[in-house]
């Protein structure tokens, strides 16, 4: 930001750590690890989600590892529970992730309810969140855009609430900005839009609503030029945040001239 900006964006805090990039990115769906690395760098993101899966036994023993291109020393790795349809599987995945990442406590919890929509199973999500918080995890939780549920998850002790903008990977953009606004107004933990963003303007809209950040994967990795889209998203997040801090003008039905009427000579 420029030096004459009164209100500086000093970042946001998740589980005691301050982050300056409000764009969080996933590492899935890239064509190869080199593209993953380039797009991740172009996004400027500090928090990168990863999935936990079975190691391929006996195949390509020398194959490069994701964590070589997004090293935990440089990025905050956010293991997810993608693909889990029960609270038990989600908790198990988080415990494996903690072991994998040397005691790392920050996780992205998602418990899915349905393969077609990938909508969260909110009762199972609540159950898993309670178990994980008791077990000492810092839980960033993916949820629906229901304000009541978002508050319940916060009360459970989640360190960030992450409502969807639209179904995962759909690219439909912000579908219910009024619910998101309510969630943001009610929350005393960071609120991040997670899932459904399609292009840069969607990310800017999320930030203009006052979200603390946006987490996305497909919108970048699925773009024709993922590295360029990562750069676009970075700018959109920054622009949206600055617009939110600047305070937009009220919407009016009719025009308001920008040039003065005094001094006209005609």
């Amino acid at each position, binding site marked *: 930001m420029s030096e004459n900006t009164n209100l500086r964006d000093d970042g946001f805090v998740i589980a005691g750590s301050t982050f300056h990039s409000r764009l969080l990115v*996933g*590492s*899935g*769906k*890239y064509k190869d690890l080199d593209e*993953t690395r380039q797009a991740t760098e172009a996004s400027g993101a500090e928090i990168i*989600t*990863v*999935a*936990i*899966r*079975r*190691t391929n*036994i*006996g195949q390509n*023993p020398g194959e490069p*590892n*994701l*964590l070589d291109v997004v090293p935990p020393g440089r990025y905050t*790795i956010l*293991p*997810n529970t*993608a693909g889990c349809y029960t609270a038990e599987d989600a908790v*198990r995945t988080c*415990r*494996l*992730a903690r*072991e*994998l*990442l040397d005691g790392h406590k920050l996780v992205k919890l998602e418990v899915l309810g349905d393969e077609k929509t990938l909508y969260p199973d909110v009762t199972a999500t609540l159950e898993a969140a309670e178990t994980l918080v008791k077990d000492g995890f810092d839980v960033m939780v993916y949820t629906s855009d229901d304000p009541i549920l978002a508050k319940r998850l916060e009360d459970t002790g989640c360190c960030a609430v992450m409502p969807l903008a639209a179904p*995962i*990977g759909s690219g439909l953009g912000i579908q219910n900005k009024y619910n998101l606004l309510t969630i943001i107004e009610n929350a005393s933990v960071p609120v991040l839009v997670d*899932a459904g963003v399609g292009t840069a303007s969607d990310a800017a809209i999320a930030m203009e609503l006052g979200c603390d950040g946006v*987490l*996305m*994967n*497909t919108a970048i*990795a699925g773009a024709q030029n993922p590295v360029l889209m990562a750069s676009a998203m970075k700018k959109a997040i920054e622009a949206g945040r600055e617009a939110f801090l600047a305070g937009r003008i009220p919407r009016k039905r009719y025009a308001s001239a920008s040039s003065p009427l005094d001094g006209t000579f005609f």
Partner: protein
Amino acid sequence: MQIQLNGESRNIPDHSSAQNLVELLELTGKRLAMEVNREIVPRTTYAQHSLHEGDHIEIVHAIGGG
């Protein structure tokens, strides 16, 4: 002895430890996590953790995801 490794049956030498299994699979030094019968086996205890006939073992790592 026979174990279930990542969902598939596999024969490994009797009295193997978790450490022996990691070596056998040429995964030494890789960043991974292991579960035996749904319990995490911390990597600091691989050498002491004896495996048994019929154990269900999962070895996982991090891959791209959103």
